[in-house]
């Protein structure tokens, strides 16, 4: 029997790891070894994007993708696929709509509508092995820059690509570099902002975990263009795997001479130091981040002076997001013109979105600028689970806003999203369905920004607290109609007068929910939560015809609010009930439901 040589790529990113990819990986390695299949290579790779379906394996060169794997599936894959060249249908991706298994990764709708540029290497190389990155042409671009281009020419290439900062604000990257390059100073710094604090966003995390060398190479190029010899990468403390892999990547890059003194014999010195964050959302703001690198409290300061003139330790500094840095080598590889041609007039290239929430295909998505929201949610995301109705997307995290169903055909770029009251932000997209309460969501975000407000300026410190108090009144059902206007008024003040981006954008979730879902605010004033989320406005009830009287709920109710004889319909005492929902989960006969008060 001839066994074809194959590579088995197993995703070992955070998402798959938490779904026990390690057990699958170990079992795979063990079985391949036991069966002495020397022509089969198992390779650990970064994120392949469809995190929802983890743990997953991609078999190359067949391009067959197996999902939702458990260790017990391994023998079947080996015996059928590797030994007999048969595809194991039932382990392939299942298209929910057509109920068809799709084994070839390229045929899965989630993938075939994407355009991978920044994420090109993610899920194809071992992030802990620099040789893999070099094999696919890694670090050739920095060499090209050092040998062929003057710093000003590198900046011109980036300008020609029309790349805009992927951290959220969308400032043209080439222009930013030029401003810093113009400053005359022996000491300059470049910083990579990996303090991805937006709840619901994980693009930077995955990118750092899956392809750290692209970020490092991008920073080298930036350092050369600007005239900096020291770089910093600031990663938030929660991203343990990203920190670990970056640390390995930096060591390997130094060993190979891509970092350090006299890179590629060009006389250019450059090194990067890793800094761990300590848990403060405001540190994503550039001036706060620099204070944090200096070891101080991470509070922002007024600009000007801009970091390009006076940044880290008072020196000219250029700071970009992880995705921006990681895109640089790819722009140099494909050419500025080709990159510039992708996208819209407003923005070139691609955006990476973290698609989550109430959506069938959740994970990391890279699409050309100018894709519509509908394509993202329904074509790539596969629509809403359990036949529920789409309500809105929330984009841009606590600084962003909600975009409702009537704007589904909006073409996504910086300008269009801003005109709808949201922002592109760093690209976190949370899909909301009919079960999401928009007042609760606004309350959630303001709770977040209020807690994360550093307290330096009054509009943000006091304004967000006032807004939170008002939103709590809505959730508790004690708000009045005039509170809606009061909330809007307050939001406007906070937006216009706060010191930094955190306060200036904090009201966006409130303003957009009022703009598009005013009726929900009005409903809360009238004592009802249409999505049945706000606890003070709902109660649980037992449907007598469905209840079998098993007493399971009564025994498990943490506050003994349920009573009833065995084999007879039970009752919930709403005054005692804390609305924890435990009974609903445990009821074997679906007899408990939420209703309005």
């Amino acid at each position, binding site marked *: 029997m001839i066994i074809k040589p194959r590579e088995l790529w197993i995703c070992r990113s*955070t*998402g798959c*790891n*938490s*779904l026990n990819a390690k057990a699958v990986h170990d079992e795979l390695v063990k079985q391949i070894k036991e069966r002495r299949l020397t022509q089969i290579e198992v390779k650990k790779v970064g994120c392949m994007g469809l*995190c*929802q379906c*983890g743990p997953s394996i991609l078999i190359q060169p067949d391009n067959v993708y197996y999902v939702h794997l458990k260790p017990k599936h391994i023998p079947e894959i080996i015996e059928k696929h590797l030994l007999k060249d048969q595809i194991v249908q039932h382990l392939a991706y299942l298209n929910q709509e057509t109920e068809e298994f799709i084994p070839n990764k390229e045929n899965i709708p989630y993938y075939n509508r994407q355009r991978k540029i920044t994420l090109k290497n993610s899920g194809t190389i071992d992030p802990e092995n620099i040789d893999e990155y070099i094999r696919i042409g890694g670090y050739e671009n920095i060499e090209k820059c050092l040998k062929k281009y003057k710093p000003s020419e590198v900046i011109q290439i980036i300008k020609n690509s029309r790349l805009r900062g992927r951290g959220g604000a969308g400032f043209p990257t080439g222009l930013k570099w030029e401003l810093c390059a113009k400053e005359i100073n022996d000491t300059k710094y470049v910083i990579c902002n990996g303090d*991805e*604090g*937006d*709840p*619901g*966003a*994980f693009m930077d*995390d*995955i990118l750092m975990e899956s392809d750290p060398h692209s970020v490092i190479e991008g920073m080298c190029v930036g350092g050369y263009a600007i005239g900096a010899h020291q770089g910093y990468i600031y990663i938030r*403390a*929660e*991203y343990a795997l990203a920190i670990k892999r970056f640390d390995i990547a930096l060591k390997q890059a130094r060993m190979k001479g891509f970092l350090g003194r006299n890179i590629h014999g060009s006389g250019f010195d450059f090194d990067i130091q890793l*800094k*761990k*964050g*300590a*848990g*403060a*959302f405001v540190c994503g703001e550039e001036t706060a981040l620099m204070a*944090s*690198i*200096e*070891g*101080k*409290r*991470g*509070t922002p300061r007024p600009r000007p002076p801009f970091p390009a003139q006076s940044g880290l330790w008072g020196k000219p500094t250029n700071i970009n997001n992880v995705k921006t840095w990681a895109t640089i080598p790819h722009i140099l590889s494909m050419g500025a013109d080709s990159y510039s041609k992708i996208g819209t007039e407003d923005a070139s290239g691609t955006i990476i979105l*973290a698609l*989550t*929430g*109430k959506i069938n295909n*959740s*994970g990391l998505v890279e699409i050309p600028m100018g894709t519509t929201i509908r394509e993202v949610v329904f074509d790539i995301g596969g629509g809403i689970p359990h036949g529920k109705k789409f309500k809105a997307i*929330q984009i841009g*995290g606590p600084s962003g806003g909600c975009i409702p169903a009537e704007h589904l055909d909006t073409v996504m770029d910086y300008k269009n999203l801003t005109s709808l009251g949201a922002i592109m932000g760093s690209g*976190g997209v*949370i899909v*909301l369905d009919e079960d*999401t309460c928009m007042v609760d*969501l606004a309350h*959630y*975000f303001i709770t*977040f920004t209020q807690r*994360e407000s*550093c307290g330096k300026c009054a509009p943000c410190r006091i304004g967000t607290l006032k807004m939170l108090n008002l939103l709590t009144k809505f959730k508790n059902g004690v708000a009045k109609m005039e509170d809606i206007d009061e909330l809007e008024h307050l939001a406007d003040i906070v937006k216009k007068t706060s010191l930094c981006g955190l306060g200036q954008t904090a009201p966006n979730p409130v303003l957009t929910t009022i703009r598009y879902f005013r009726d929900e605010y009005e409903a809360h004033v009238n004592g009802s939560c249409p999505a049945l989320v706000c606890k003070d406005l709902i109660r649980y009830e037992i449907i007598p015809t469905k209840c079998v009287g098993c007493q399971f709920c009564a025994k498990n109710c*943490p506050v003994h609010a349920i009573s009833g004889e065995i084999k007879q319909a039970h009752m919930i005492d709403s005054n005692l009930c*804390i609305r*924890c*929902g*435990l009974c609903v*989960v*445990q009821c074997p006969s679906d007899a408990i439901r939420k209703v309005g008060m």
Partner: protein
Amino acid sequence: MIKIADITNIEERKAIENIIRNYREDSGTVISLLQDIQGHYNYLPAYILQLLSRELKIPLSKIYSVATFYAQFSFNEKGKHIITVCDGTACHVKGGPLLYDYLINQLGIHGGETTPDKIFSIEIVRCLGCCAISPVMIVDDELYGNLNMQKISKILSKIRKEEMIQEGSK
């Protein structure tokens, strides 16, 4: 006031000396210093902060100002098993708050608190970056995804059982 020489536990003394060396030789900052201390003790003991303040000539007020700013640092001793609950947006819309309430109910403590027997601590973080499998939490450095009440119940009883066995073998 305690000095390094007063620390009799050799392991602890070595750890402190290491922390000091890291700070001095590795261009340390107050943040990296505090991260090192917390890495060893799992919280920031007051006597160590006082000791290092004198040893490294950093005003205690400066250490305190940094320690209180960042969510990572804690002045209270944490439990043996740390449960980190994610309250990111995806977890929130997919029922995270109900699971948090369930934990509060089961353990009798809120976020940032430790059970009296020092077995469990609950911490809340904003987004662990694996939203695709929300709701999620971390228990003892292991990440659990697609959570529901039953799964949490299983995790808790497993830890409790282990603790009882350990207690019994003492």
